[in-house]
Structures are given as C-alpha cells and as structure tokens.
C-alpha cells in the first residue's frame, strides 16, 4: 500500500532563508487535482494561502514527540493529502524532525521523500564553517540544497565544497525550477554511481595487472602489507589530529606557538622529533595544526621533518646501515635543513591550502547535535571527528597504496643495471623511485641501501631524505582536502630542495665522510 501514501517534502533552513516562499513557488507548479497539506513548524514571513490545507504548529518545544506525531498523523488521516510539505523551524535541530518523521505511526500513513535545505548563497560556506552552525546539521541530512542569489561560478564553488562535506547532496540554484522539479521527483543516484565507479576502478586495476602478466596474489600481498603497515599510523595520526581539533582551542595554539618565523619552525622540528609517527600520520596532524592557526611554514616544516627525523626512523636507519651512526646523523641533519628550506617557500603563501573555506576552519563532527538540540559532548565529538576523518582520508590511502603497489610490481627494486648514471642521474633516479614506491619511512632505509648498492651514497641519501617527505601515497592522501596548487607546489619544492641539499652536501664531502 506504500504507493498510496502521501510523500513528505521537508524544507529546512535558517530564519528568513526563504523557506515559505520556496514552498509557495513549488505549490504553484504542482499538477491540479493533487491535494497538498502544508505543516508549518514556524511562522513564515509569508502566509500560505489558497486551497492548500494548512496546519501551523507553533509550540514544538513544549510538546513531546508522541504528541507531535499524533497531531500530524491525525491531520494526515483526516485530510488524505497527495503530498505533504513540512516547513521545519530553523532554530530546531533537523535530527528531531527526522526522528518524528521516522516514527512508526507516521510511517504507517505517509513516507518521507526529500529533505530540502533552502539557503542564501552569499556567505553560505562561511556560515557552514561557524562552529555550532545549524546549517551544517541541516546539510548533512538533506537531499537537495536550494541556493539563492548566486551566479554560475559561485554555484560551482558551492557544489564542489558541498560534495566534500556530504556526497549525496545536490546543490541547485533557486531559479532553476526545472531541475528542482526533476530532483524532487526522482531518487538520488549519486550513491550507486559512486559505488559502481569504485568497483569498476578495482576491476580495471586487476585487469591491467593481469594483462601485464603481474601476479595478482603477490600484488594483493604487497597491497595488504603496505595497508597493515600504514593503517595503525594513520589511525594514530587521526587520533592526534582529532584530539587537537576537539580539545585544543585555536587561541591556545596561537598563544603557545612561537610568534616569529624561526621559533615556529624550530617548534615544528621539535614536534617532528618527538613524534614516533610515519608519513601517513603526519598529514592529518599537519592539517589540524593549520586549521588551528599554526603558521603554514612551521606546519610544513613539521610535516616534512617528522617522518625523517623521528626516533623510529633513526633506529631503523641505524639497523639498516649496520650501526653506522654517521648515516643516521646525515639523514637527520639533511632532513632538518631540507624541511626548514621547504617551509620557507611557504612564508608568502596567503591563500588557503584547503579546497574550501569550510575545511580551513571547522569540521562536521563538531556540529553534531542530539535531537534535543544541544551540541554533542566532547567525547562524542572526538569519536565523530575520528570516524569522519578516517572515512575522508581512508579512501585516499587505499588509492595511494593501490597506485604505489602498481609501481612496485611494474618497476621492482632492481637498479643494478643502471649503475653508470653518475651522482646526478642516480640521485634523480633514486628520488623518483622513492616517490613512486611510497615505502613507509620506518622501513625505507633497508630498501634504499640495497636498491642503491651500486650507486654513490649521495643517491641513497636523496632517497632517504626525500622519500618520507613526499610520495605518491602522501600526495593522494593530501588531495582529500588540499588544493591542487598547494600539492603541486609542495611536491616540486620538496623534490628540488632535497635534491639541492643532498647534492651540495655530496659536493662538500658527504661521501668521503660517510665512507
């Protein structure tokens, strides 16, 4: 009997967003003969008039869910409408509306169709970034966002930003009546398309490996080895990042963090030195630090230094090179020098490195509301942030590992046939290999040593200094929410700086000193 149940269209938005006007405009386009019931949970700027059945409910907060459900169910049973439009109060959490509409008594007499957020376009993204914003809570539960007063370019920017916050939402311009009608009538297919795309990509990759005569079981083993090595560090990084995001205020960071450039960079190096994390973990922490207002040069110095100079990496280098402390020292010192220089390249960066304004300031989990409308506890915020960030960067980790596995299977690590390249050629080759193979910084020392056995030590050092800072896996991980411009810049700058630092050190006698 589901077919005969009236469909509910719920309209959300802040006060004066234009919810009533939007509903009125939609009602004018509904085919004649359809009986429409409008339930208004707040008094709109415009009144609903004409033949429409209209029920105002002004005293939501003083009524229990059961009482509200009974009122709505009675109205539906009595009026037998074809469609039901609900205008939800902009001051109340949408979660309460969803709880009401999913109540068994209502599900028996009507079905929830779409939830539509109506919003002013100017300053919309900035509003989403305001901590505690109801707009974000509404956005996370809506199918369609109808945006007022935006041109095509602004709409494109909003669409791009929203797609990263809530993948299912369709952003439509207020004036685009045709698309609004179309979306209100058809189910959202985004989810299915996305799942199908991922599945197709996996099958295509497997097919490519098979076509290239590369062992799929070995590829899967390499993939899983890298994933199992990376995931604990990624989780650790996300945990640290979540703790910073939820418990450390931007004010505190600004107060504690050294104000001058050099002090900030030294702080970044010191932080990197203390954290036993690999490159997978340093990226989420970097992102949190920037969000909390740490100057970009210092944060970049931290991100690039941490995977090279932390205790675990030093120990693994020590073991890999048979207890040669000079190699460890050279790796750490050159890593610090390169990190500081890379950081300096970002002193004049003024534009946001994040793909949208929202990412630069806040996160969805910190705007989690219970149905009572109170912000969630810090613990719930922490777990929510942890979960959201894991899903956000986890997919990029999988993609990064898939790409690096592909390169490992295709390229291997046998470079003995290329031992006539000289210092510059062998350094470039080893650094490109570090980029493509994406080895964990805690293990790359052994591989670098063996792979570069027939090369000058400068080439191995290029591999050891550059590899942990930047590789394919990290670049894909960064693309989760950083701009292409920033990613390209940091990749190029890191490569050039690491090459220059290690090359100059070699000219100054690094090879002789390490011999």
């Amino acid at each position, binding site marked *: 009997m589901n077919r005969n149940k009236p469909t509910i269209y719920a309209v959300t938005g802040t006060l004066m967003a234009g919810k009533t006007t939007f509903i009125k405009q939609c009602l004018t386009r509904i085919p004649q003969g359809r009986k429409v019931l409008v339930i208004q949970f707040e008094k709109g700027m415009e009144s609903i008039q004409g033949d429409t059945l209209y029920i105002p409910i002004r005293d939501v907060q003083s009524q229990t869910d059961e009482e509200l459900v009974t009122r709505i169910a009675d109205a539906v049973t009595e009026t037998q409408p074809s469609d039901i439009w609900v205008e939800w109060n902009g001051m109340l959490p949408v979660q309460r509306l969803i709880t009401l509409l999913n109540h*068994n008594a209502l599900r028996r007499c009507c079905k929830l169709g779409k939830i539509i957020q109506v919003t002013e376009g100017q300053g919309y993204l900035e509003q989403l970034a305001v901590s505690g914003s109801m707009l974000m809570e509404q956005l996370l539960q809506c199918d369609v966002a109808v945006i007022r007063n935006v041109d095509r370019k602004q709409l494109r920017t909003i669409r791009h930003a929203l797609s990263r916050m809530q993948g299912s939402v369709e952003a439509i311009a207020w004036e685009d009546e045709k698309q609004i009608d179309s979306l209100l009538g058809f189910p959202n297919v985004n989810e299915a398309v996305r799942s199908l795309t991922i599945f197709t990509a996996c099958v295509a990759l497997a097919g490519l490996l098979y076509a290239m005569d590369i062992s799929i079981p070995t590829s899967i*083993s390499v993939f899983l080895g*890298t994933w199992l*090595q990376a995931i604990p560090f990624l989780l650790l990084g996300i945990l640290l990042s979540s703790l910073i995001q939820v418990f450390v205020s931007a004010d505190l960071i600004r107060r504690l963090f050294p104000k001058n450039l050099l002090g900030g960079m030294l702080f970044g190096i010191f932080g990197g030195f203390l954290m036993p994390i690999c490159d997978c973990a340093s990226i989420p922490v970097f992102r949190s630090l920037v969000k909390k207002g740490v100057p970009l040069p210092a944060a970049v110095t931290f991100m690039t230094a941490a995977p090279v100079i932390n205790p675990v990496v030093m120990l693994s280098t020590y073991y890999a090179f048979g207890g040669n402390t000079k190699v460890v020292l050279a790796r750490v010192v050159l890593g610090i020098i390169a990190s500081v220089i890379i950081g300096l390249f970002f002193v004049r960066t003024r534009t946001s490195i994040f793909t949208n304004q929202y990412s630069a300031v806040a996160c969805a989990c910190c705007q989690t509301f219970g149905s009572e409308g109170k912000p969630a506890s810090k613990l719930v915020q922490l777990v929510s942030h942890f979960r959201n960030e894991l899903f956000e960067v986890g997919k990029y980790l*999988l993609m990064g590992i898939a790409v690096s596995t592909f390169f490992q299977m295709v390229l291997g690590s046998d470079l003995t046939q290329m031992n006539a390249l000289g210092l510059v050629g062998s350094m470039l080759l080893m650094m490109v290999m570090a980029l493509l193979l994406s080895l964990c910084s805690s293990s790359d020392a052994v591989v670098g040593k063996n792979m570069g056995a027939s090369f000058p030590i400068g080439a191995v050092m290029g591999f050891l200094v550059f590899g942990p800072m930047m590789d394919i896996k990290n670049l894909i991980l960064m693309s989760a929410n950083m701009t292409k411009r920033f990613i390209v810049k940091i990749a190029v700058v890191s490569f050039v700086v690491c090459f220059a630092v290690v090359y100059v050190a070699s000219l100054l006698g690094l090879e002789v000193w390490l011999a």
Partner: protein
Amino acid sequence: MRRVNVAMLAEGIAFAMLGAILLVLSVTGTYMYYVTPRTLPYLYFASAMLLVLGVFALLRMFEQAHIKPYSHLMVLLVPIVLLGWSAVDTGILDRLLTPPSITSDSEDLMVAGGGAYTMKAALYQDTQIHGYDPVHRRIVIPEEETYLWLVEIYENPETFLGFTITTMGQVMKDEAYFTEGTFSPVRQLMTCCTADLYPIGFKCEYGDVDSLIADQWVRVTGTLTIKTLSQTSELRILADTVEEVSPAREPYVYAY
C-alpha cells in the same frame, strides 16, 4: 519496537569485523605474513581503535537518519575482502583452522642443531642464537634465525671458516647475480612489510646447479670458505649436499 538505522548497523559491523580480523592476525601471529613483529603493538592499537568505532556506530544504530550513505564503507570493505581472499590464498586460514604440528623441515633443523651461541655482531651483541656445535665445528641454522646467523657470520667470518653449515631456503640462481656453478638458498627478509621483501642467503658453490629449479625449497649442507676473486673475496659455502625439502613454516625472516 525501535527501528534500526541499517546504514549505521552496516558501518558498525564493518568496523567490528575489520577490528576483529586485525586482532585475530595479531593474536595468532599470522600478521607476520604481511608485516614484521615490530608492528604488533601498533596492530593491537589499530584493532582497538576500529573496535571502538564499531561500538560507537552500533550504539547509534537506533538513531534515525535521512541520508544513509554506503559508499564510504569501501574504506573498510576493501581491506576486509582482500584480507579474506589472502587468508585463503596464503594458507593463513588453514593454519588458523588446523592445530600446529612439528612436521616442517625447519623444525627438524632445530631439533638436529646444537647449543646456543651468543652473538658478537655489533647490533645484536649478547643475542642468543641456536644450532651451534663447536665440538663438531657445525652450525645447523634454524629457519627463523637465518638473518641473525648471516649477520654474525658475515661480521665475524674468521670464527666460522671451515665449519659445516646447514641452511635452508629457496633456490635463487638468476644469471644477473650468479656466476656458473653458484646459487643461493634464499629467504625473503622483511624489514617492514611485504612491500620491502629482499632475498638473503649464503652464496653456495655446487657442481650440479643446473639440476636445481628456481624457487624450489632446498636444504644445503657444506663448508664455509672464503673465495678469492680477481679484485675481492667473498664468503661461500662449498655445498656437499643439496636436498629438496618442504617449505619453511614461516614465509619470511625478519630483521628485528
């Protein structure tokens, strides 16, 4: 009756499954098919985090939501499916389902070996390794100590010259690395994970290398010697016997 949010239930189950899989791999030691023992504490941490997220999701499974995304679960489902497939392919599942038995040739080597030896190599000083029989000038290298014995012998070759060495591994006789009449019984050394496997083993001289098949598991017994080449010299085992054996119990050896 309260209605279940199926998307949240699925998320909770996926988190719990992945956390449980990591826990099983960690507790049973089968994680060593993919990563080194050094990773174990981190794997316990990852398992705990995933289980916490699973519980968190399950606690929210009665919380109604309008938007119920599923595609993000790929982040959990891809590793779950691949770990499941790999468990069957690599024999982890068999190992988990059947009790261990001492049938491997490596265990025989262990039994046949002599007493303990205290390492002198700089990085592993005072580490105890086994299979050392100074009276008969013989070393029977246990499979899991292949790397440590290699380090010890290469760092202190003079101590062991003339010893009879017994070791096992897979035949490697690639022409790019081996001259005629030589090969290595190699084990795959894992430093961090399966992405950095590297073959290690003694170079052996043997009169009938052509009869050996690449990758077959063999046990080599021979005398340790130094071979002087045109410009340098290298350690080699002059192999007396090379016999085919069953594969090692553990797929890899580990640096630390």
